[in-house]
């Protein structure tokens, strides 16, 4: 079966992220096996629990949450990209002396090695 992996490099407030979400939604609803989404560069901002977007605007993180729960879609975050952008999680709290954890737990803490894994398993890799 064909497998799809997706790379998201745009932040949750970007319209390009909406395109990525709609693409993943469409793939999943057609029964395509989406083996994972990898968040790199500003894409990592999606994992910050403190992000608050005006209620009349598109709620990217709600959409990712829905996809994650409905399809058990793996959402991998590049920890180096995330830490640079103020995201902290339990595993790394001691390292950077951050005050509290703000990593949204629908995301799996990963590194670029995970991107290698995804690309070697996927029939197709699509970047947004």
């Amino acid at each position, binding site marked *: 079966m064909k497998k799809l992996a997706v*790379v998201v*490099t745009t932040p949750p407030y970007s319209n390009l992220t909406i395109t990525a979400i709609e693409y993943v939604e469409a793939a999943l609803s057609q029964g395509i096996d989406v083996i994972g989404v990898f968040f*790199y*560069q500003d894409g990592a901002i999606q994992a910050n629990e403190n992000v608050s977007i005006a209620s009349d605007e598109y709620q990217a993180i709600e959409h990712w949450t829905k996809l994650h729960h409905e399809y058990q879609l793996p959402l991998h975050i590049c920890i*180096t*990209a995330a830490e640079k952008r103020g995201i902290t999680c339990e595993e790394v709290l001691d390292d950077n002396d951050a005050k509290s954890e703000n990593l949204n737990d629908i995301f799996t803490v990963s*590194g*670029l*090695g995970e*991107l*290698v894994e995804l*690309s*070697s398993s*996927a029939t*197709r*890799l699509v*970047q947004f």
Partner: protein
Amino acid sequence: MAAFTEQETSEVAKTAEILNTTKTLALINSKAPFANTHGKDSLDVALIFASFEQVVSLFFQGDGVYQLIDQQDGSLISVKDYLKTFSAFEFYDIEDIYVCQQSLVERKLSNSFHIENVQVLTAKDFALQLSQHKHVLRF
């Protein structure tokens, strides 16, 4: 990159079909080096893929060609000079480094690069090499 005629497009597609796509990842670098972190983010991806023994090729196109120009010093503007790491490509077995000739010409840049083994390709050959890869990421 220049728009191809229909004939050129089909030629590239045909040649690509003949040659099997065996290389893992093509990284297209399209941004100048020091204004943002795209170049460094791309370099990190290249080195990780290479250290997992995946075949990675680097493509420089548009303003990305500035990443290859010699005599640059990021430290003058207090930027960590990630371009120095390009000299490690050989150690990582990253051997295929392509630059778009047209992008150089448009910017009046010469072929004096700060690393060896850079291949300057016409838009058509650039596209052909790109088509040899299973995956493409662009930074």
